[in-house]
């Protein structure tokens, strides 16, 4: 990783010095150098703060959205992005939230990150990697202005594998009552901190549906009824858009397995509309287009 | 002591449609005893409930000198106010209060009073105006400068007419440029400008300013030019509130809880606060 970091810092310095960008959004260490946190580098002399390693779990594309007005105010950003983060930037471009030319994407080749920073003890081992990393087809980032790092020769398995996929199959084999109980057990824990929403770069609405109160569609109280409505609608609003970056689940302070619902919808969209989110900025997302012969079997 | 957050029930005795989206309610407590004993001071506020929709904070727009009822005025903008906007005479709503501090009018005895208000901010001032007019002998001259965006947006039109006719009050009405009608008799211009032009004498005068933050800011400047000292200028700060009693933590401006220590402040106090409004 040492070489990559050196390259990254040089690139960042060059971009800031030339004035091509005003800020580099990247990863840096905390005081104790035990954890990685997002940093905003505006001074070329401070590019040494940039790091890149298996602790770089955050999807920094949230800082490109309009929620972060004070980041936008600094000027044109360069963003340090792994392939999976770039998928979100692609969706933002497709949905007209970011113009491609308004952001400089520093693509990082990646050999996987930890599922949560706390899990990384010394070395990154497959057991602590999230499912997205095991099935990653963008270890060599796909939409970039520059790529840092050696080409990865990892090929993802034909059929996606991992705990999330196994669990989805297991849930699908349950009865409706079992599924209902399973999910309610998890959703009941929800504390409505909205970390899932805030960490999702695709949840960029300035007024979320849960904040719309005329009428109050989703009850804001963290009781089972309000939690169920919130979690269902959050997932639904990401149908056909979610890139399965896993940030919502990582950020959830009460460990709700949000990846399961998200991946379920990713699979539904793939099967029904043959669409995968985050690869091509010129293709419309599936929920705003249609085919006259969309297949379904349940409308009588 | 009973639960703080349980409102008293009040009946809407009368409704006044002030403008297309501003309404006033005359409210009477259901509880007979409370009707007799309820007291408040001018400048205080209350929390009004529309059941099923929530609570909103408005000032008590009536004067404490008028017993037996309270009055509130609000603009229909959000969930609660729109709900209140649909109620009719005889309906029940909730009220808890009075909360907050008040205008120290006892200290103003013998002084001239200048009222400055913009738009929907006349209601808090109205409470003071009537309080003072009801005991006018204790005070000096009363001048009112009131402005709104357009003629249609002026509230308390009846009362404005009444004040205009009274010889003991000087009323200056104004509307923003472009908001006047053909038969508009008042001035055209923004409140701070009109205020400055009015050349009100600062000597032995107290100024009460209410309005949107930007208007307050410019009015404080204009009053300074007219020679008012900051201690003689009173204003109210408004923030979103939920509890009204200093618990819910959203109305604070820096370390000052408006609901408990406010909403009435002098310009001197405003200038030493954290810039958080």
């Amino acid at each position, binding site marked *: 990783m040492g070489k990559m970091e050196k390259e990254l810092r040089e690139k960042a310095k060059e971009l800031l010095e030339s004035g091509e960008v005003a800020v580099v959004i990247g990863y840096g260490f905390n005081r104790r150098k035990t954890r990685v946190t997002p940093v905003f580098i505006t001074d070329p002399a401070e590019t040494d703060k940039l790091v890149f390693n298996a602790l770089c779990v955050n999807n920094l594309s949230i800082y490109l959205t309009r929620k972060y007005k004070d980041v936008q105010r600094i000027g044109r950003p360069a963003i340090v992005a792994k392939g999976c983060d770039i998928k979100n930037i692609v969706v933002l471009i497709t949905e007209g939230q970011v113009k491609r030319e308004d952001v400089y994407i520093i693509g990082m080749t990646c050999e996987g990150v930890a599922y949560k920073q706390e899990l990384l003890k010394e070395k990154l081992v497959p057991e602590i990697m999230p499912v997205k990393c095991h099935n990653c087809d963008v270890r060599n980032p796909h939409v970039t202005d520059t790529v840092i790092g050696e080409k990865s020769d990892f090929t993802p398995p034909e059929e996606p594998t991992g705990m999330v996929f196994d669990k*989805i199959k297991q*849930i*699908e084999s*349950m009865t*409706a*009552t*079992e*599924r*209902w*109980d*399973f*999910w*309610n057990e998890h959703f009941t824990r929800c504390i409505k901190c909205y970390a899932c929403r805030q960490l999702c770069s695709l949840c960029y609405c300035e007024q979320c*549906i849960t904040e719309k109160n005329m009428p109050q*569609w*989703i009850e804001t*109280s963290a*009781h*089972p*009824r*309000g939690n*169920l*409505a919130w979690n*269902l*609608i959050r*997932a*639904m609003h990401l*149908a*056909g858009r979610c890139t399965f970056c896993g940030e919502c689940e990582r950020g959830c302070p009460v460990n709700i397995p949000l990846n399961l*619902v998200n991946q*379920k*919808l990713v699979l*539904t*969209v793939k099967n*029904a*509309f043959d669409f995968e989110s985050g690869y091509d900025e010129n293709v419309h997302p*599936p*929920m*705003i287009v*249609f*085919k*006259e012969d*969309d297949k*379904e079997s*349940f*409308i*009588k | 002591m009973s639960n703080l957050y349980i409102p008293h029930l009040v009946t809407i005795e009368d409704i006044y449609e002030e403008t297309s989206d501003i309404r006033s309610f005359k409210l009477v407590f259901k509880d007979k005893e409370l009707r007799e004993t309820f007291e408040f001071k001018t400048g205080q506020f209350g929390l009004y409930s529309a059941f099923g929709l929530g609570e909103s904070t408005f000032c008590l727009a009536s004067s404490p000198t008028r017993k037996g009822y309270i009055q509130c005025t609000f603009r229909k903008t959000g969930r609660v106010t729109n709900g209140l906007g649909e109620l009719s005479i005889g309906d029940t709503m909730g009220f808890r209060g009075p909360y907050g501090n008040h205008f120290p009018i006892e200290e103003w005895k013998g002084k001239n009073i200048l009222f400055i208000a913009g738009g929907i901010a006349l209601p808090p001032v109205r409470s003071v105006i009537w309080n003072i007019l009801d005991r006018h002998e204790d005070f000096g001259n009363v001048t009112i400068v009131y402005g709104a965006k357009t003629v249609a947006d002026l509230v308390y039109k009846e009362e404005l007419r009444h004040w205009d006719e009274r010889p003991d009050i000087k009323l200056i009405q104004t509307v923003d440029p472009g908001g006047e009608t053909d038969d508009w008799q008042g001035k055209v211009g923004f409140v701070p400008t009109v205020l400055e032009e009015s050349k009100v004498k600062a000597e032995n005068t107290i100024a009460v300013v209410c309005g949107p933050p930007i208007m307050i800011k410019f009015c404080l400047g204009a009053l300074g030019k007219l020679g008012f000292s900051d201690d003689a200028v009173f204003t109210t700060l408004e923030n979103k509130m939920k509890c009204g009693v200093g618990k819910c933590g959203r109305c604070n401006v820096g370390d000052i809880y408006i609901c408990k220590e406010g909403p009435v402040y002098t310009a001197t106090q405003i200038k030493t606060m954290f810039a958080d409004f």
Partner: protein
Amino acid sequence: MSEEAKAETTDSKESFEPKIMAFVCNWCTYAGADLAGTSRMEYRPNVRIIKLPCTGRIDPLFIIKAFENGADGVLISGCHPGDCHYTTGNYHARRRWIAFKDLLDFTGIDMSRVHFSWVSASEAIKWVELINNVTDDISALGPFMDFKRLNKKEAE
């Protein structure tokens, strides 16, 4: 008496009258239901109709909200594909339902309580049959307790 207590005292399923919410589009299904009415056709009275401009306006939230408020079943109906008054509203709606149905199913909401249908302005007979069938189906299932229990749970 609470909804649940009411439902639980209802011993025999025959005496249970389900509450069914129908979200229909203004131009086809509502007109179809209207035709059934003006033609004096009789059908089960368990359905409460909410008319919307187009099926494209039927937000997934409506279904959840209906269940939250005590519906035992939900029916969604609009123009046949190709017949939308706004040309494409029902195509968009169809895509949304495909995803939402999978989500509901995955989270364990009893899908036999959610019915989708196309009913045109001339299909009064289809409407009548649909309502009768849906009502029978849901009567047979009994009261929908999942959400009602949720309501009770949060009140504790």
